[in-house]
């Protein structure tokens, strides 16, 4: 009997301490949550303000005190923005550039990385190091000679300067992909070789299908970089109609500096593809990058 009571006491004590721990944890959590929610609101304010402005009437946008949420949202602003600025055209231009660059990356990067990862040849590590060191070269250093070269070739004001480099392998992607291929067991190559596959058969039937996470990184990063690129398009393109969305947006601002309700709508529309991409790719991206990425 006595031991029973003792056991009960211990049990009660345990339960009490567990409850205290849980309470502590909940209060700790709620502080964390409060902080996170506060920070999240601060971080989202510029985006919220953009969205709110995009739905206002022209006379409301400079009103004081400002209206946080417009009382009668003007969805027609978006149609007006699309009608007034060649937004659709610019987004299409960006999409063409994105697709052409992704195709270039997917064509070139696996082949080059396969060479580095699977074959031995003299000067391999020196060449790999050279390739890595080009990752550190800031892009601005290349602009003047390339401008001269493209002018000689008659390629200024075409998409060639913005597309061609991707067909010769971006060093960051080559590095990423090489590291990834090295994690694929060579037994698989050997098995395929016994089945009669040649070097390129192994690349296309074994390596590429197994490299989906690395290729996802290539696709997503290329998308974001090309969609957001600004400096190269303003240098290599002249014709307004050929501008990608980032440049197009910047130039409206110079022209129509008071139509902030339309402008904010256009800006919001311009980031939608990037946001969609992020939501679709998020899982693969963080996983993929963490496994290959920076480990020191």
């Amino acid at each position, binding site marked *: 009997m006595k031991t029973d009571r003792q056991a009960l006491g211990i049990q009660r004590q345990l339960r009490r301490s567990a409850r205290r721990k849980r309470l502590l944890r909940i209060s700790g*959590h709620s502080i*964390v949550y409060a902080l996170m929610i506060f*920070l*999240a609101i601060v*971080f989202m*304010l*510029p985006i919220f*303000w*953009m969205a709110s402005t995009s739905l206002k009437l022209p006379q409301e946008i400079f009103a*004081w*005190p400002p209206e946080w949420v417009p009382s009668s949202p003007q969805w027609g602003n978006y149609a007006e923005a699309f009608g007034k600025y060649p937004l659709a055209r610019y987004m299409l231009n960006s999409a063409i550039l994105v697709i052409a660059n992704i195709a270039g990356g997917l064509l*070139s990067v696996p082949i*080059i990385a*396969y*060479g*580095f990862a699977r074959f*031995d*040849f*003299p000067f391999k590590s020196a060449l790999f190091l050279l*390739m890595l060191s*080009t990752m*550190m*070269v*800031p*892009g*601005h*250093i*290349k*602009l*003047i*000679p390339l401008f*001269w*070269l493209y002018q000689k070739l008659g390629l200024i004001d075409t998409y060639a300067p913005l597309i061609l480099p991707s067909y*010769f*392998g971006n060093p960051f992607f*080559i590095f990423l992909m090489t590291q990834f291929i090295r994690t694929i067991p060579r037994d698989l190559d050997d098995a395929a070789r016994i089945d009669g596959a040649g070097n390129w058969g192994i690349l296309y039937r074994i390596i590429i299908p197994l490299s989906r996470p690395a290729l996802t990184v290539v696709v997503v990063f290329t998308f974001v970089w090309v*969609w*957001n690129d*600004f*400096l190269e398009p*303003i*240098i290599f393109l002249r014709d307004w109609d050929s501008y990608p969305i*980032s440049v197009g*947006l*910047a130039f409206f*601002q110079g022209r129509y500096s008071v139509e902030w309700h339309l*402008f*904010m709508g256009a*800006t919001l529309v*311009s980031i939608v593809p990037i*946001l969609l991409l*992020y*939501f679709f790719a*998020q899982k693969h991206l*963080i996983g993929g990058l*963490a496994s290959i*990425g*920076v*480990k*020191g």
Partner: protein
Amino acid sequence: MPSFWRNMTAQERRSARTGYLALAPWAFGFLVFYAFPIVATFYFSLTQWTLVDPPVWVGLDNYTRMFTRDPLFLSSLKATLLFVALSLPLKLVLGLMLALLLNLKIAGMNFFRTVFFIPAVISGVAVSLMWIWFLQPDTGVVNTLLSYVGVQGPYWFWDRDWALPSVAIMSIWKVGGAAIIYLAGLQNIPAHLYEAAEIDGAGKWRRFWRITLPLLTPTLFFQLIIELIDAFKIFTEAFVITKGGPLKATYFFLYYFYEEAFRNFNMGYASALALFLLAVIMGCTVFVYRTSDRWVYYEN
């Protein structure tokens, strides 16, 4: 035929040939997009050249002009260094703090990660447009909120003293990009180290200084170099928001280079500017790299 090739077996030679063939696209790209431009920039920097006429050799004239009688060179360099000094430490420290928060195991964390990461994927142009509007002196959100607590907000991008700090604050909005990389580093730290430390009675603070921070130094090092190069290349924001103003307060180095090269077509002088910026960036990178064995911790 070189000796290393003669000493290889037929099979080794076949493998080497395939390897070189696979590398061929990269090698071509390297020559056209890296080797040629870098060498050519060196040459052009020693000439006077407007793109229309052939380059005229002027020796080191561009460099003497740059270092002795170009106030714009000095002011744009100063603005850039100031921007780097303002934004880089803040981004590194706040990025780490944010990553520590985002590494907590609580429900809904994916949502928060997304929220903080979104600004990092938005284009510089879109961010700039958003922030012009966000920081409007009269009706912008920030100054409105400040006015509620009785503070008269500054003129942000439109004030000579505030323009550069404003661009720096705006760049910190993108800190989520750095935080995600830290987060990957944090998740690579083996959990058993924390468990062992906890058993030994190490508190949270101690665990952070003794485990988290040392094991995160490789990530910090990587991040420092990436952000450093990035900060020196600040351009788009100034181009879109301030046009380098007011009174050249945000006339950053790359902006000066852009205008010299592609507005004024002083290609020779602009090449010298480009090389100088390259030298500064490489100098900083090498410096960070040299000091790294003193503070970067490697497991092996």
